[in-house]
């Protein structure tokens, strides 16, 4: 099993979500995060002073999948979250030891 963590543009989420629903990935968990990176930050202004907010709101997607599903999912995310501009984000993959479905006794690959 692999764990995919993708940090993407919040505005691209809908598109990625739609693309993923056509892959073997049927589950995911997302959260709002703040990205600090190379991206060009839009500066804000308040009462005459301009300031950089320093971060950009991003969406993080976490998916745990079987090893053989990995490529398909990675491709779906990459293709659909891409604009080609700086700030498109990153995808990280790591190993998972075990997985459990809380509802019943399913484990590991069965639990996904």
């Amino acid at each position, binding site marked *: 099993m692999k764990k995919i963590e993708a940090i993407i543009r919040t505005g691209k989420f809908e598109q990625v979500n739609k693309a993923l629903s056509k892959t073997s990935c049927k589950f995911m968990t997302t959260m709002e995060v703040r990205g600090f990176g190379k991206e060009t930050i839009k500066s*804000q*202004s*308040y*009462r*005459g*002073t*301009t*300031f950089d907010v320093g971060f950009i709101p991003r969406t993080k997607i976490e998916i745990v999948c079987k090893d053989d599903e990995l490529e398909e999912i990675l491709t779906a995310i990459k293709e659909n979250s891409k604009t080609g501009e700086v700030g498109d984000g990153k995808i990280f993959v790591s190993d998972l030891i075990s997985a459990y479905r809380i509802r019943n006794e399913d484990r590991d690959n069965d639990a996904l």
Partner: protein
Amino acid sequence: MEEVTPIFTVHNLWIMIATLLVFIMHLGFANLEIGLTRSKNSVNILFKNTLIISIGILTYALCGFNLMYPGEAFEGAFFGFAGFGISLSEGWNTPAYDEGYTLYTDFIFQAVFAATAATIVSGAVAERMKLIAFIVFSFLYVGIFYPMVGMWSWGGGFLDTLSTPFYDFAGSTLVHSTGGWAALVGAWMLGPRIGKYPNGKIIPIPGHSLPLAAIGVFLLWFGWFGFNGGSVLSANPGEVSLVFVTTAIAGAAGAFGAFFASYIKFKTNDLTMVLNGILAGLVSITAGADAMGLIDAFIIGLIGGIIVVFAVVFFDMIKIDDPVGAISVHLVCGIWGTLAVGIFGNEAGWNQLVSQLIGIGVVGVFCVIGSGALFFVIKKTIGIRVTEEEEIEGLDISEHKMSAYPEFN
């Protein structure tokens, strides 16, 4: 005993309604102040603002009213006092007391005015002043200092007996600057909020809810029609309707003044500046709302709106941290509005301008010394500023053990 006539009843009704309008300004101030500050201090601000109006009403009954209107015996004086409490004179509820209102109407209208002075301070010292220190300050400033100043002009004191009497129709100086000076002194003595001016840079600390700030300004404008309109002290159709029009036009012009000034200076459409611009226009017209034509009102408001933008920048430059812009709005535009009476409208003239300068000067000196002494004594006794840790955590938790929005943070 004089009879209660229909016209007396109308006049009195209007002053009572104006009282309500000024009362609701306190909700406006509260909204503006929490909107322009961080959510970790909102409970604290609401607590202060809820108590201020209560303090205003109670101290004004206890001594404020009789300090501000001590009666003819103190004409031309610097200080007068007619004793504690409110005593019912004969005919208190007939035109014998005044053509326009009963004693109680007079009292309650003036009482809701009084609390305004402390509310102005509240905004400037927000997010770092100790609760108890602020409460003690409010009691004394609203209960004693504000009515003393008011007495000088409205109560028949020495500013009223100048050869050309000082003219401050609804209180650009007597209310707004009186609050504004204490706001300046308080903000200066407290020092800036942590993180506002690190290494000499200016780091904005955006307010947490601009919708609340905008609601506040709408309510303030709404209430200002009572603040200025009620100061006619009767429902006289011609006078009150003129005041309505000048008040409306000055507020609108203030919005545009600040809009243009901040657009030209910063290339941005800053909502908080437009909101401050409206208030700037309103404060500016307050001193002469009954003495101006429409074009005068427009110019006074427009200039007020422009001034406030530069004032906000200026106070940031000299590192006076005023989270809501209270000093810029109430003090700076209060001075401008008071001067404008000598420049525009019916009262304009050199003599008037001199009287206005005298009034501004005397009130300024007195308020700076008075509020400075007060803040100083409070600082040395109960302390004036929360600890660094409390400030970072927010006054809501440290002073109240509560969170304004427990679900959202």
